[in-house]
């Protein structure tokens, strides 16, 4: 039974409209879903950035009262939660969606409707978290949600409820997407593409899916226990009831540490695509890159307690977690040297994606080094809960993930939208971002070591924090300008002509072999893969660049039909969680209605004409 049934289109009417709102709501095309992910995540990224700017205004001078302590708590909690779950993860998902099928030579993902479902659940979960602002009850216990800050006793309001429920909804989206992409990468590779011939971005994304599959169930249970504590009066995290607040920290970081690799591995993959193309050299040490990625992911499950040195776990646990953490520097170092080996002696093409990729390497090294510093428990005890930690994780999350994702945006923009972004504005964006980023986050190392605590809404004058904090605020506004330049670039070039050729950068991977933007059916002919850099191989064999590919007519190619059942099911899932949160006020009828919506959506999904073997005529 070595087959996959995709339904068939011959007996069905033509595939609905290609434009308009309804076509976007019902789309199951991985490319359109990728664009939806990107646009939504960029919106949440701007929202998270706005929250950061408000925080920086508050901290610009000592004893400031621009924000109340309560508002400050809500802003830093929502900033962290949004940037991780609503910005960086879905921005990576945008590239998974758009690029993985193209890189492996597939027509779509394995389960196109499940893919749409993942997006809609993500959108609804993101909106759910942010609707809390309208209730004046945005989450305020930090993105890490430590017990017993989150207990009913200390957080009686709706704030933490919105956070718990919002994260549960987003977890459904991540898990559904992870099952889908794991299956897609393993099963839908073009004929001839061995695992060790896969593009490196696909490889790193594949490892990311494994991390998602294994890490998200743990946070799901941690959040379930918190839900029981808050909604049903259990005491899993309540010491007075026999529970243990540290259990939350363990469960959270068993998820939370793999999560940081979920955030960074896709960026590693993007950088590993950009550097070879703009150095005109194959990736140095491909196999070492793949295996160091796997090794990082594996170690990522064994180091969670380095987030918990301050809890006093004793010398044996401290020693183990310290050593295991330092071990991660080895595969990460392997990656960095391989990137350097890739550009070494290369014929560098100084285009915007290369700028961001090089910026990534430099910034990520700084973040990596400060990470090794607090792998040591004695050093960590000085640094924990200070701005030094804030500096560290912004160097890896912003200096790493965001620089990498931005490199990917400039690199793949022509493929996705068929238009080249302006090079001059792109480089301006880069320099503003590099300067603004370092002005914002480098001084945090210093104020952190001077003892400035995190998560505190203000600081007194005369502690030596004033000037550096003002510099940080100025830096944050430069970052804002950097992204306004990016937005201007997008608007300007969108008004211009469709000027992107199929292969503007002399790419090595299959996505550059088809027109920009790709036709709905991706590949007119299923590509045959004979090497690791298939497009370079083809160009070498031909002795020069390839002619512009024709998109073909798509005749005879099966394309999955649009479907609205993923949206209905996504509404059902969201409604189940929302009704649970409201159940103690409204009763349980809401849950019953919500479960009915989900079952209605799922059964219509499973037996949908054109997809299901059970209802499709033949």
């Amino acid at each position: 039974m070595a087959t996959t049934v995709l339904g068939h289109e011959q007996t069905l009417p033509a595939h609905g409209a290609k434009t308009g709102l309804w076509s976007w709501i019902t789309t199951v095309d991985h490319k359109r879903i990728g664009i939806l992910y990107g646009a939504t995540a960029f919106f949440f990224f701007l929202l998270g950035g706005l929250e950061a700017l408000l925080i920086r205004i508050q901290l610009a001078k000592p004893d400031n009262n621009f924000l109340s302590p309560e508002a400050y708590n809500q802003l830093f909690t929502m900033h962290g939660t949004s940037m991780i779950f609503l910005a960086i993860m879905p921005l990576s998902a945008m590239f998974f969606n758009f690029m993985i099928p193209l890189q492996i030579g597939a027509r779509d993902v394995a389960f196109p409707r499940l893919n749409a479902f993942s997006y809609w659940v993500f959108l609804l979960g993101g909106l759910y978290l942010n609707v809390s602002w309208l209730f004046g009850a945005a989450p305020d216990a930090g993105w890490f949600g430590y017990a017993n800050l989150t207990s009913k006793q200390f957080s009686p309001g709706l704030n933490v409820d919105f956070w718990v429920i919002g994260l549960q909804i987003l977890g459904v989206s991540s898990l559904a997407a992870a099952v889908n992409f794991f299956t897609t990468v393993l099963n839908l590779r073009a004929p001839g593409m061995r695992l060790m011939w896969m593009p490196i971005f696909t490889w790193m994304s594949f490892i990311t899916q494994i991390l998602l599959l294994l890490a998200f169930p743990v946070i799901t249970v941690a959040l379930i226990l918190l839900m029981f504590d808050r909604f049903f009066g259990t005491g899993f995290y309540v010491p007075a009831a026999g529970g243990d607040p540290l259990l939350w920290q363990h469960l959270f970081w068993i998820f939370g540490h793999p999560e940081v690799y979920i955030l960074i591995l896709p960026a590693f993959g993007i950088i590993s695509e950009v550097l070879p193309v703009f150095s005109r050299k194959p990736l140095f040490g491909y196999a070492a890159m793949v295996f160091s990625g796997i090794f990082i992911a594996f170690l990522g499950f064994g180091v969670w307690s380095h987030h918990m040195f301050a809890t006093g776990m004793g010398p044996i646990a401290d020693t183990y977690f310290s050593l295991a953490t330092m071990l991660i520097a080895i595969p990460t170092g392997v990656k960095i040297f391989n990137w350097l080996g890739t550009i070494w002696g290369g014929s560098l093409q100084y285009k915007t994606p290369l700028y961001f990729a090089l910026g990534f390497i430099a910034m990520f090294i700084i973040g990596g080094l400060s990470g090794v510093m607090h792998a040591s428990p004695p050093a960590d005890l000085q640094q924990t809960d200070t701005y030094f930690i804030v500096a560290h994780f912004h160097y890896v999350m912003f200096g790493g993930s965001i620089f990498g994702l931005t490199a990917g945006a400039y690199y793949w923009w022509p493929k996705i939208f068929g238009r080249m972004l302006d090079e001059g504005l792109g480089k301006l964006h880069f320099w503003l971002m590099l300067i603004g980023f370092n002005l914002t986050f480098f001084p945090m190392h210093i104020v952190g070591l001077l003892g400035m605590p995190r998560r505190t809404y203000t600081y007194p004058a005369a502690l030596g924090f004033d000037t550096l904090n003002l510099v940080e605020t100025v830096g944050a506004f430069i970052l804002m300008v950097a992204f306004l330049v990016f937005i201007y670039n997008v608007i300007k070039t969108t008004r211009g002509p469709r000027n992107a050729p199929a292969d503007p950068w002399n790419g090595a991977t299959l996505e550059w072999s088809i027109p920009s933007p790709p036709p709905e059916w991706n590949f007119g002919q299923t590509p045959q893969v004979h090497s690791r850099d298939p497009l370079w191989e083809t160009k070498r064999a031909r002795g020069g660049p390839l002619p512009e590919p024709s998109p073909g007519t798509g005749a005879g190619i099966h394309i999955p039909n649009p479907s609205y059942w993923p949206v209905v099911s996504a509404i059902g899932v969201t409604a189940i969680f929302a009704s649970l949160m409201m159940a103690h006020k409204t009763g349980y009828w809401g849950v019953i209605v919500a479960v009915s919506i989900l079952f209605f959506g799922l059964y219509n999904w499973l037996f949908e004409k054109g997809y299901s073997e059970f209802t499709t005529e033949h």
Partner: protein
Amino acid sequence: MSDHAPALETSTGLDSRKLAIWTFIGSECLFFATLISNYLVHKQQWLTGPGPFPHEVWTDPATGKVLEPIIEIPLVTVGTALLLFSSLFIVLALYGAQKGRRGMLLGWLGATILCGLFFVGMQVYEFTHFVHKGLTLQRNMFGASFFVLTGFHGTHVTIGVIWLITMFILALRKQLPSTRSLNLEIAALYWHFVDVVWVVIFPVVYLIK
């Protein structure tokens, strides 16, 4: 499946739906591992309520009355046995589906569903019985972690029963010929997984003191 839909070869030779259910099961392992860990961490920690041990005779501190042990092994053992047998039954049902023997398919699938229903019913009875004996979700940490662990397992069994009933109706309507037996195979994989999880939970919760 050649008669009704264009089929694509997959890179692994494994059907994508089958690979996906295996992937999902892998992820679910972590879900139950975390719940079981939570139970093991908490089962000895109670400050109030039935104690000192759910397997032993205990004295209600409020009334001074001596009460029976909370946990009763015989009933759960029957439920466990039926759940284990249902894994065999669904293998026979799948064999029937693959060979196109509809009677065999319907009979064994029906038996599987009955076992599942008995198990869920057993759990509903057990939960209400425990509550009557004074063990509630809020009473102590044993109660909380017990109900959450076995409750989520019971929810998985319930979803499995609904899934199998759907398959049963399809089979009744002659819509589950041997060419579509993969649909039952996927449901069976999930059913086996739910059984295997119980094989861990049963000794951990009921047998080990």
